[in-house]
């Protein structure tokens, strides 16, 4: 078996050491909430009188979520153990640190652990009279949506939610406004991924799944959840054909519609490949006669050392969404 090859010290201690490294090298943007692995904006002035936006989840998706804390985006982010939802007490601390009197809005990715831990934290906050509302993002179209399941996973499309809500909160939206906005955004964000290799959780020491040297898997999740099909490695254009095809079926593309696009590297895939892939995506969307109004490329919501890429689309039905996407922020990674 391949030995794990990572630049770490103790596999059981990666999260606190990572959070320390992140906070110490970005002290102008974020600070640690004492006794937690959660970070809050350093710029307190930017939060005054505004609704706080809190997100978080398991670690291993860096720069998500801590990299998106800062003026105009998240107020605080909670870093759980690797691929494990953070605990309610830590989320509660993040809620308290983000509340300046106008309440706090939670952006939760749809995993049973995340949903339950955030809900418990929400209960704790309400017991202390902090008004809290939330949205559960489920943008990964790889899994069949059905009332008989946990539903779809929250993946890189969540960043659209962070960005839109962060901008609105920055402009003074109320908790109710944000809830309404989140409901408007939610059905319009969808994501699909392709993996070229599995990710290795430090404490586990071996990849969550393995692919042959010439094999890829469509539909993999950000924790290595299995996808919907394995096949031989394809050229970028063929990957785009497959993934945009899936998104087309979900959105039911109509000529003239406007979309925002995120191409997200999974951790070990170089930017060069991400740009080549984006180039093919833009060609394909132009073929579909769609108008692309916003684009972002990079390692944004990764899966440790997984090689692969995800494609997120956000259907823009209201031009103010574009303003939200372009709203200026001061974060580590947006």
């Amino acid at each position, binding site marked *: 078996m391949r030995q794990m090859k990572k630049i770490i010290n103790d596999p059981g201690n990666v999260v606190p050491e990572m959070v320390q490294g992140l906070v110490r090298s970005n002290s102008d943007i974020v600070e640690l909430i004492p006794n937690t692995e959660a970070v809050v904006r350093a710029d307190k002035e930017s939060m005054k009188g505004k609704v706080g936006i809190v997100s978080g989840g398991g670690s291993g998706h860096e720069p998500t979520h801590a990299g998106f804390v800062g003026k105009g985006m998240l107020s605080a982010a909670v870093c759980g*153990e690797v691929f494990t939802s953070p605990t309610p007490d*830590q989320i509660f601390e993040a809620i308290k640190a983000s509340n300046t009197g106008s309440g706090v809005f939670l952006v939760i990715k749809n995993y049973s652990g995340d949903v339950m831990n955030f809900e418990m934290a929400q209960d704790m906050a309400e017991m202390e009279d902090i008004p809290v509302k939330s949205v559960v993002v489920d943008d990964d179209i790889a899994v069949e949506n059905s009332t008989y399941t*946990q539903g779809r996973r929250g993946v890189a499309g969540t960043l659209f939610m962070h960005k839109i809500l962060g901008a609105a909160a920055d402009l003074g939206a109320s908790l109710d406004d944000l809830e309404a906005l989140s409901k408007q955004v939610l059905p319009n964000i969808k994501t699909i991924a392709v993996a070229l290799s599995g990710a290795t959780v430090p404490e586990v020491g071996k990849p969550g799944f393995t692919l042959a040297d010439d094999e890829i898997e469509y539909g993999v999740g950000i924790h290595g959840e299995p996808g919907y099909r394995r096949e031989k490695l394809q050229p970028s254009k063929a990957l785009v054909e497959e993934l945009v095809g899936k998104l087309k079926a979900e959105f039911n593309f109509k000529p003239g519609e406007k979309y925002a696009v995120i191409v997200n590297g999974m951790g070990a895939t170089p930017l060069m490949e991400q740009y080549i892939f984006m180039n093919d995506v833009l060609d394909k969307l132009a073929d579909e006669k769609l108008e692309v109004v916003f684009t972002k490329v990079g390692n944004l919501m990764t899966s440790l050392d997984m090689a692969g890429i995800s494609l997120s689309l956000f259907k823009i039905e209201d031009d103010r969404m574009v303003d939200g996407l372009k709203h200026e922020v001061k974060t580590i990674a947006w």
Partner: protein
Amino acid sequence: MALTVEQAKTWLEDFYTEIEAQKQYLSDLDTPIGDGDHGNNMARGMTAVHEDISDADFASVSDLFKKVAMDLISKVGGASGPLYGTAFLEMSKTAAGSTELKDLVSAALAGIEKRGKATTNEKTMIDVWSPMAEKLNSDEAVSEADIDQFVESTKDMVATKGRASYLGERSVGHIDPGAMSSGYLLKALVKVGA
């Protein structure tokens, strides 16, 4: 069949020992249908419980369970943290009135069902807690073999809650890891002989 503080401590220490021993196995069960961390998650939580209870005195079973609940809630994370945490929180509330096994297990079950928004036959730990509560409530004796069988029953189910649900039909043929750890917990409870 009412639990004393001493018995409750023995129960939890036995469970801690079992989790330590089965940590790898639980994570292995979580690998094909989950994310391979259930053993680590439970071990993180029960290590904290063990450290907090082994040398401490508790005035009541309710107090003890409250401590356990808080440790599990704040140390485990993932899906099992809130579920086990809620189970002990509900048992703590109930234990203020009664420490009858059937009352405790029923309270835990109700908490898990509410927290997980889940019911039986969804291939989760509920498929162990629910038949356990049922047997206790009809005043039947529950053997370790019974519990093994509850756990085993999850193997043929299609998961519709938790991570395993992403696999749909492909989840069939694997025992649910949370059901297995719940099996350890309930077998340790039976062994205490309260």
